[in-house]
């Protein structure tokens, strides 16, 4: 199973700091452009915080055409668009003769929440008789991936991975296994989440958002002493993963190779992390082992830190323990300083950033890092930095015990 090599041959990205496409994303992340702004999607006057990483210039009809969008919710539109962008970037056109050989798997956890609420609101306000049957499909968790497959004629398989913060890394692993088992040559894998009032309300109510506490800053500043919670985000990112032989055969551009994945679910607590950080540490070590890469060979960590007090400190602690002999020379940065926390989409966006870091041999910065915190005493990249990036690690983890880690390497044939 491990003989097959899996490479990245396409990137489809819609991100709050760059809008549409991988080129604008690349420009934005290496220039430290923030996508965090006052929210325009819904009224925030009843809330204590008012900003999020919202994609403000997203018009799906410009990517997908106008037909059939009426019954797609925002997250379905985001995923359909990112999937099409990945296919176009990879130069793959889906036709009848290849449609059964291509699959789509995406991480998604909260994406149907607004559709569920909207559907139920009509039932409560007007009566159950008057709910729109065409909007019911959006209320199920696999709606986004199914919509994308139907719209783009992807018949190989469709799957939704709903494991929260680590969902899109877990989706990439699902794709890796399919390709390594020889069941498919090409799989589109990624994640999606939409920003909506319902999700914002939930995170606001459980006290996870930055700026809720008196005197705290409403800012995404991972690892910084001022950090006090997340800035919620949204986005979609789909990578085309391909068996190396297939990629070489069609002379595809190869961005990077996926080398290893590790995961650990700690079954600890629904709303807390284990301060021993054993789960993330195990995920990171397992990914290194799978990739057959020594810790000192990792050049860059695209961190999952999201500006929460405990989780950022947990990752810093893990990095120090796993990279005991080499953490001083490691380059570490967190994309979430620019794009907020988009939950099941974050991991895929981080993977795209790591792939571009390898492609450009440059590290994207952690913006907003100003005040050092002793519990996160690593050296962070705060301005884009040109350097060797042969191997990168991406971490995804969160409250609720899930931890995943992925290793991406420069492609050498």
């Amino acid at each position, binding site marked *: 199973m491990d003989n097959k090599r899996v490479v990245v041959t396409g990137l489809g990205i819609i991100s709050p700091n760059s809008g549409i496409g991988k080129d604008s994303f690349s420009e934005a992340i290496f220039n430290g452009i923030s996508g965090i702004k006052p929210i325009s999607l819904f009224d925030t006057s009843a809330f204590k915080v008012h900003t999020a990483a919202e994609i403000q210039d997203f018009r799906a009809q410009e990517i997908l055409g*106008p*037909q*059939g969008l*009426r019954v797609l919710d925002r997250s379905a539109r985001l995923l359909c668009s990112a999937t099409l962008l990945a296919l176009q970037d990879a130069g793959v056109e889906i036709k009848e003769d290849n449609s059964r050989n291509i699959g789509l798997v995406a991480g998604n956890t909260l994406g149907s929440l607004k559709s569920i609420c909207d559907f139920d609101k009509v039932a409560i306000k*007007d009566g159950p*008789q*008057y*709910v*729109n*049957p*065409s909007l019911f499909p959006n209320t199920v968790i696999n709606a986004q991936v199914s919509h994308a497959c139907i719209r783009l004629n992807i018949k190989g398989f469709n799957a939704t991975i709903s494991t929260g913060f680590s969902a899109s890394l877990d989706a990439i692993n699902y794709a890796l296994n399919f390709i390594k088992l020889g069941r498919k040559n090409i799989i589109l894998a990624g994640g999606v989440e939409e920003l909506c009032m319902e999700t914002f309300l939930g995170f606001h109510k459980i006290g996870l958002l930055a700026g809720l506490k008196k005197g705290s800053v409403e800012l995404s500043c991972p690892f910084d002493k001022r950090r006090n919670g997340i800035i919620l985000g949204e986005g979609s990112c789909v990578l085309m993963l391909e068996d190396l032989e297939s990629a070489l055969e069609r002379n595809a551009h190869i961005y990077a190779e996926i080398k290893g994945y590790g995961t650990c679910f700690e079954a600890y607590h629904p709303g807390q992390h284990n301060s021993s950080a054993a789960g993330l540490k195990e995920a990171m070590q397992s990914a290194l082992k799978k990739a057959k890469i020594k810790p000192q060979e990792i050049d860059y960590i695209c961190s999952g830190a999201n500006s929460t007090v405990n989780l950022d400190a947990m990752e810093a602690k893990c990095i120090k323990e796993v990279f005991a002999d080499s953490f001083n020379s490691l380059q570490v940065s967190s994309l979430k300083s620019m794009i907020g926390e988009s939950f099941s989409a974050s991991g895929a966006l981080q993977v795209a950033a790591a792939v571009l870091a390898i492609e450009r041999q440059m590290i994207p910065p952690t913006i907003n890092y100003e005040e050092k915190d002793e519990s996160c005493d690593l050296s962070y990249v705060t301005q884009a930095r040109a350097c060797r990036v042969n191997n990168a690690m991406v971490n995804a983890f969160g409250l609720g015990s899930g931890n995943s880690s992925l290793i991406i390497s420069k492609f050498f044939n």
Partner: protein
Amino acid sequence: MQDIESEVRNLIAEVLEKDPAEIKADMRLVEDLGMDSLKALEVLVAVEKKYKITIPEEKLPALNTLDATVAIAKEFLAKKENNLSQP
């Protein structure tokens, strides 16, 4: 009554993502205009909601043209008005 025909045409056009002018009174919704079963249900619910009437789902196959849909809407609207006028 002309208003009902115009309103139902607009509802059908919205569901089918077509210009209302494209929906001719006797065109077959499935064969000529691409209606599917989910969209047909959507039209039924939209008509019910618009006129606050209840059309039994057994009537769904009969909603096969604009003319037929308007006739059914009028039939159940008349029943509703009749019920309201009963002492």
